[in-house]
């Protein structure tokens, strides 16, 4: 089955903007992605080492006043992303078990890059208190100064090493 075409970027952008606006108007905050892994970590930490978790600079706010770390709008929202992404891919005929890569790199090489990139991004998103969704997209629309600095630096970082890793894609 031939997969559906992607949406025109500007049309997708307007709809994404309306979804983001809905998040602000309904929940009072933007969209995010790293709340689920971060708060899962807080949940595990709370089981394994509650005292350490309660004092950890990153995790302490998630377990303050005995609240369950996963009882959070942004966590539920990521569950929604999982469902929406899955049904989107299914309905477009794009659901396929495969590795996206260029012809000149092995699967193992590509997955090594993916893992390394993931670790760097997880570390970076924790440091910056948000990722491309929470900082750049949501904070950008909210005109947060730090979010705009973050966004410009994401592009700067990406362009600065793109040439070095081009083997993956070409």
């Amino acid at each position: 089955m031939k997969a559906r075409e992607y949406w025109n970027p500007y049309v997708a952008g307007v709809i994404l903007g309306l979804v983001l606006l809905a998040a602000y108007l309904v929940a009072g905050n933007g969209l995010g992605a790293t709340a689920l892994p971060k708060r899962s970590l807080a949940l595990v930490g709370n089981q394994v080492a509650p005292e350490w978790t309660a004092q950890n600079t990153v995790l302490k706010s998630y377990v303050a006043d005995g609240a369950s770390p996963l009882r959070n709008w942004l966590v539920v929202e990521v569950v929604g992303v999982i469902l929406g992404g899955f049904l989107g891919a299914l309905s477009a005929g794009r659901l396929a078990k495969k590795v996206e890569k260029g012809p000149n790199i092995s699967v193992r090489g590509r997955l090594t890059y993916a893992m390394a990139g993931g670790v760097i991004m997880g570390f970076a998103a924790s440091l910056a208190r948000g990722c491309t969704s929470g900082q750049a997209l949501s904070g950008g629309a909210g005109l947060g100064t730090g979010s705009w600095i973050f966004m410009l630096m994401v592009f700067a970082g990406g362009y600065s090493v793109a040439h070095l890793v081009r083997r993956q894609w070409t």
Partner: protein
Amino acid sequence: MIDPIFPLTFPTDDLRLLTGILIGFGFGFVLERAGFGNARKLAGQFYLNDMTVFKVMFTAILVAMVGLYGLASLGMVDMSMIWISPTFIPAQAVGGFLLGIGFIMSGLCPGTSVVSMVSGRIDGWVTFVGIFLGIALFTLTVDWVPGLHTLYLAGSGEVSLLHEVMGVPALVLALVMVAGAVLAFVGAEKVERIFQAKRSPVELTPPSRPRIKLAMGGSLAVLAIVTLTAGSPGSAGTVSPMVSMAPLSLAESIIEREPGVLILDLRIEPEAEKGIPGAVAAGDPVMVIGLLNSTPEGTVVVTYDESGAFKEAPAEWPKTMDYRFLEGGLAGWRDEVLTPAAVWGSSLAERERVLRQSQISAFFSGAGVQSSSVTAPPPAMPTGGAGKKPKSGGC
């Protein structure tokens, strides 16, 4: 003025959480349809042959920005209840740069890795696991790597908004950004075409058709018009002009201790010069609104700044007061009230006026012509109603 209705309030917290599923569903679905479940397509942004990331992201940012601040200017959104990420410049600059490096290595960002993962992409799964490990790495090391802890916490940590830093209204900045984006999108289309000649983009990317370009231009024009009308005078949420008040009338009213008068000092630097006796220094705009909301209805509110330039009551001020502005501001006060009249006029009325003025002047300069024990009644200073901030947030 409309009462703010956003963000919505829910009878139970469960109901509010449930909206996360719906909105998240929309987020995931649009990301998939935009092609963001595909690492090769996202990576194209950094090789300039597929600028979809830039186009989708900036269109979305501008739509949400205009919507949010447009509704706020109409008084429909309580911005104090909207969570905007606080600014920690060093951590966000370094974190952003690192995230960009990770982005081009994995071809995905945290949000899109979720979509890639559920589309069945193995690189998406691996990236997501990597992100989890990276978060764990940071969380485990932040408290014992001294430099990291310092970097994480360096900076003000306050909510800093770009338009406030620049000193322009949010919608004006949004309009400038919309205009900039139109030019940037035209540029991006050109750049794409040049680099696609060298390296073809991911298949299934719709070619740019004139119809779609027209739609894009049209929607951006609509955005700009919405921005302009929402921000221009004449629509709801605008300033209203105030009646003026002569310095001598105000002086009389202070001496007579007329009830129901509130004098509001709106100078930016109230410390620079002694203000009018009994005036309340305003502080920031939010405090002023809090003060006005706790002032009885029908109060005569006399405002003054340095020079009398402040002549219009902002839209956010309650409409139940009688607003006046002091002619000439504090400078007018200084010239007319604090400076004793020197010249005797010819007519009797004129002489009476001058005599009265010199008495007033002496009263406020502290010379005490009449009862020097009279001091202006200090209005009660209620506390501002600001300061509530929601708790949640994060990426």
